[in-house]
């Protein structure tokens, strides 16, 4: 039980929020409303999964929002060049994979701090997206493609079904696989992990590539939902994703974190945002609340666990 106290606190906050919302704004907690509002969260949720793995190894990926933009633009430009739409989608995911792999090579092989590498590619990938698309929006995708972003499967939105599947895969990978154990070991002590014969570099390459590929998938869903591909999509997304993961209890110093916590972190941020926007119709207030929530959550976390900080 004690192991899961952070998840309990998040769950408690989430329930409290929904109860308050149910009392003050009954319309907000209706399933139909919630399903409608959920369309805003899936890309963020998908990106939070690989980010959890990366932060557990004490790494970070700031480039996810820009990678999304690059993949969306690739999707749009290839479609304009009369490539079949599903092949375009596959190319977008592959672009993401390649972008993530480049991050991975710099982190694992060149041994540069991931903050620096992905800060560089944060600029570079969006720059390339702007350069090749000249900043113009591309639209006019077929209806069959819009289905993956807007359609439902058994009453559930398709992006939600994809996320649920991905969350289970990532959860199992992290908590039940050899690679999952290796991620925690790397986050605790990378040097020791290397000496124990863990393929540290290969695992890093894998998780950064995975992060890129998920950004590609998120881009496909985003374009399908909005029917537009432009180089400015996903701007600032990296910060939302990191906020959700850290709020979910993953330590920014590595070695600690779970997919369940990340899912709750994503939900809490999403519901807080949507409620503030529903009740006060005020986007500025959302920023203040989310920023304060992040600092408060980590502050409480450090105070309660009395985590010894390595300085």
């Amino acid at each position, binding site marked *: 039980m004690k192991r899961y106290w952070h998840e309990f606190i998040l769950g408690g906050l989430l329930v409290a929020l929904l109860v308050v919302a149910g009392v003050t704004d009954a319309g907000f907690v209706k399933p139909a409303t919630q399903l409608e509002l959920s369309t805003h969260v899936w890309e963020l949720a998908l990106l939070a999964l690989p980010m959890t793995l990366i932060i557990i190894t004490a790494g970070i990926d700031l480039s996810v929002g820009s990678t999304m933009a690059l993949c969306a633009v690739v999707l749009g430009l290839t479609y304009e060049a009369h490539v079949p739409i599903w092949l375009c989608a596959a190319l977008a995911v592959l672009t993401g994979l390649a972008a993530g792999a480049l991050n991975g090579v710099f982190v694992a092989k060149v041994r540069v701090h991931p903050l620096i590498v992905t800060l*560089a590619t944060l600029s*570079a990938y969006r720059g390339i997206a702007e350069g090749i698309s000249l900043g113009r929006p591309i639209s006019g995708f077929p209806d069959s493609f819009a289905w993956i972003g807007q359609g439902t499967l058994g009453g559930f939105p398709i992006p939600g079904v994809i996320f649920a599947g991905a969350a289970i895969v990532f959860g199992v990978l992290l908590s039940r696989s050899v690679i999952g154990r290796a991620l925690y070991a790397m986050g605790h002590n990378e040097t020791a992990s290397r000496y124990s014969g863990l393929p540290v570099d290969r695992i890093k390459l894998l998780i950064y590539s995975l992060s890129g590929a998920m950004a590609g998938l998120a881009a496909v869903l985003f374009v399908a939902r909005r029917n537009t591909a432009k180089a400015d999509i996903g701007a600032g997304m990296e910060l939302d994703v990191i906020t959700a993961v850290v709020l979910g209890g993953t330590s920014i110093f590595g070695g600690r974190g779970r997919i369940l916590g990340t899912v709750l972190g994503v939900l809490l941020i999403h519901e807080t945002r949507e409620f503030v926007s529903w009740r006060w119709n005020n986007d500025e207030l959302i920023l203040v609340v*989310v920023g304060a929530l992040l600092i408060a959550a980590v502050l409480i976390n450090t105070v309660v666990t009395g985590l010894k900080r390595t*300085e």
Partner: protein
Amino acid sequence: MKKTRQALQVLAQRREYGLLALLVLTVTVVTAINPVFLSATNIRDMLVQCVPGAIIGCGLTFVILTGEIDISMGSLMGLLAAVVGLLTTSEHLGLPVAAGVALTLLLGASVGFINGFLVTVGRVPSIIVTLGMLTALRGVTDLLMGGQWITGLPAGLRFLGVGTVAGVRVSLWTAALAVVAAILLARETPLGRRIYAVGSNPQAARMAGLSVRRLKLFVFTLTGFLVGVATVVSVPQLSTIESGIGVGLELFVVTAVVVGGTSISGGKGTIIGTLLGVLLLGIVRTVLIFLNLGVHMVYWEGAIQGGFILVAVLVDHFARRREE
């Protein structure tokens, strides 16, 4: 020990020489293609564009030297721009310019202090604290401005943005002063040496009796203060204050500091390097325009700036490997 220090110094210097060479090369090539690039007006414009980066970069260099990070500068600048506007315009509070500026600088330093306090006493990682601030301060700014632009800035405030002293813009004098002061602080004062000491080996620094906590509080507060300085000399260049001032500035400054050779893990780096990094990245857009490669080239600015960091880290990597 002495040998390693000498080797490190040479390496750090080499980065600065490399940057300087790249800067000179860029300027020479662009001038050869388009001589207007080196006209007095264009040089002034490019330098003025670099002012916020240079001033804030001084503070951030110290923060990164202690092994911490601050990514809240852009949002803080947005907030301080709104605050200085609201305090001094007659439409709002209409305080005297000097009082408005002083309060703005105080607020900047206070936010920096809060960052530092949460990092040192609250033990929240600096990337989290300043990420939270980045988000929250942007929201506070938008709430304060309420979607309206602030217009009718008083003449005194406008002077800080566009006025000249001895033929040179006030903002350039201010940036020069900040850079010189930062260099002196880093190289000639015990405080500067302590900041390096804390970054290169916090444990040893603590055992030597240095208060790591107080030094970190100082560098965060200094950075907040410098964001205030950068705000009051750069924002009044225009006659209106709109929302969205400083968006993305944190990334520009962090990039410039890192390209300038400051190690992200602390203890190594110089103000001169940061200044060169700011100049190099700051002129990319102008260079793209002056190269006459067509309007569309401007879209590649981000890609080129990102490419600079990757090249810088690759050069570092191979320089290190050769030495080993």
